[in-house]
């Protein structure tokens, strides 16, 4: 336990790095996923902007990138991170790559949840004179909000998982910390303390997500 106490300042730093990695990635990946998911949804056959070509291309892109194991994705896209961020290592580069990878996963979750909105409700909005953009913003997204919140909560956990690998490109965070100071220094207490912090973090967010979704769904 002494090691844990000695390392307390570093622990705090690693924990904040994880928070920063996860929330920044969730923000960027969440926005990216929302945009791609919306695009998949609206261009699907029979939908507001049905477009076979756009849908087909997006669908293939998402299908190609989504299943790539993240540790390979992280290293494979390091040149792109260097191009966009200016560096291929560090927390910011990790945020970039996590955001990019999660965009593909989130887009599917967004698409699936939007598809649960009844076409009849969309027809009612159109019959009331609403244009496609207004229909999406004022009807489709609000109608799917409950499941979307649950979807994003799920994504949060997936991003925590991704963030643990960020250490590969020196991205920091509890994952890297647990490997460096716990696993490599033969200090299981350090590893387990890192684990405990991650569990608490996930529990808190899951609790908030469930609560918020329940509030939106009124049940």
């Amino acid at each position: 336990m002494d090691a844990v106490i000695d390392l307390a300042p570093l622990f705090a730093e690693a924990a904040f790095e994880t928070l920063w990695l996860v929330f920044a990635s969730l923000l960027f990946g969440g926005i990216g996923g929302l945009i791609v998911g919306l695009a998949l949804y609206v261009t699907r056959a029979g939908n507001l902007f049905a477009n076979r070509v756009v849908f087909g291309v997006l669908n293939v892109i998402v299908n190609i990138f989504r299943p790539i194991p993240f540790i390979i994705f992280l290293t494979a896209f390091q040149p792109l991170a260097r191009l966009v961020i200016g560096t291929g290592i560090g927390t910011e580069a990790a945020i970039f790559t996590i955001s990019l990878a999660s965009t593909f996963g989130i887009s599917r979750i967004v698409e699936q949840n939007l598809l649960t909105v009844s076409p009849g409700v969309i027809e009612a909005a159109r019959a009331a004179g609403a244009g496609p953009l207004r229909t999406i913003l004022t009807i489709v997204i609000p109608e799917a909000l409950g499941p979307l919140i649950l979807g994003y909560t799920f994504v949060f956990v997936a991003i925590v998982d991704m963030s643990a690998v960020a250490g590969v490109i020196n991205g920091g965070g509890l994952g890297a910390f647990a490997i460096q100071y716990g696993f490599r220094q033969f200090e299981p207490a350090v590893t387990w303390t890192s684990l405990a912090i991650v569990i608490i973090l996930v529990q808190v967010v899951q609790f908030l997500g469930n609560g918020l979704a329940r509030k939106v769904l009124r049940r």
Partner: protein
Amino acid sequence: MPLVQIRDVTKVYPASTRGGEPVRAIDGVDLDIEEGDVYGIIGYSGAGKSTLVRLVNALESTTSGSIIVDGTDITTLSERELRKLRLGIGMIFQQFNLFSSRTVRGNIAYPLQVAGRPKAEIRARVDELLDFVGLADKASNYPDQLSGGQKQRVGIARALATSPRILLADEATSALDPETTHEVLGLLRTVNRELGVTIIVITHEMDVVQSLATKVAVMEKGRVVESGDVFDVFSRPQSPASQRFVSTVVKGVPSDIDLEALRARHSGRFVTVTFRDGGASQSDVFLEFGREGIGFELVYGGVNEIQGRAFGNLTLELTGADERIDAVIDRLRERVEIVEVV
């Protein structure tokens, strides 16, 4: 000039499978809907009635032909102009299609928000509509807290929010129980009579047409096979489709199966007499038979009332000398519709 004129309209959907035949959902339909009408469009599922009604507010585009709403051919309008048009045409649905993320008030306010009305005006208008449909106490409830009948009343209030001149009702009562159906039909009648809204009612239920509509069009396979005043169509259906629909609410001419059963029990000749408001009365007819000494027995039929006018189809078994029966039938034919059933 009619408020809605549908002229030689077709709607063709591309084939659902590669190399298949395109589907002609609407196949050359002409209809005139006058201001103030409650126009029933009846047909079995797949007859094209739901598609037809969606052409009127351009939720579906026509393949050919024209649809003139209030003097404007809407098939020539841009999407932006169509949105404006839709503000003047309300629509209600079988599954209500309420926005579950919005309260009753939010649902009714939606078309007004789309129309860009000021907040205070929206508030006042929604209050007025809530009173009109009798849901003032449910303003802050969500749709999933309402019964089916209440949901449809919210649907009606939402459809009427922008004070449209036309209301499209797509199977609006098909998901409701008989009592609630009655209540919703009553509300629609009020909408027509008190607010002067022209209503186009799509249904597969003949009693909806019977109790609400003034005019009716019978659709089959994308075509209108018969149309006119409800009384005329009901009392003298011409097409087989109309006859089938009418027979669901009006006991009229016996079917072949009915006839077989009747033949087993009766040995005389059968005639079906159609009585209509203004024609010869039943007593006139019965008197003729009696005078000639012809025995008659009522074996099938019924008398109905539509829009305050009565009509009936009665099938009688006649017994007596054949030449006398022939003579009476000939004589009656000048005054009443009488057909020998063979």
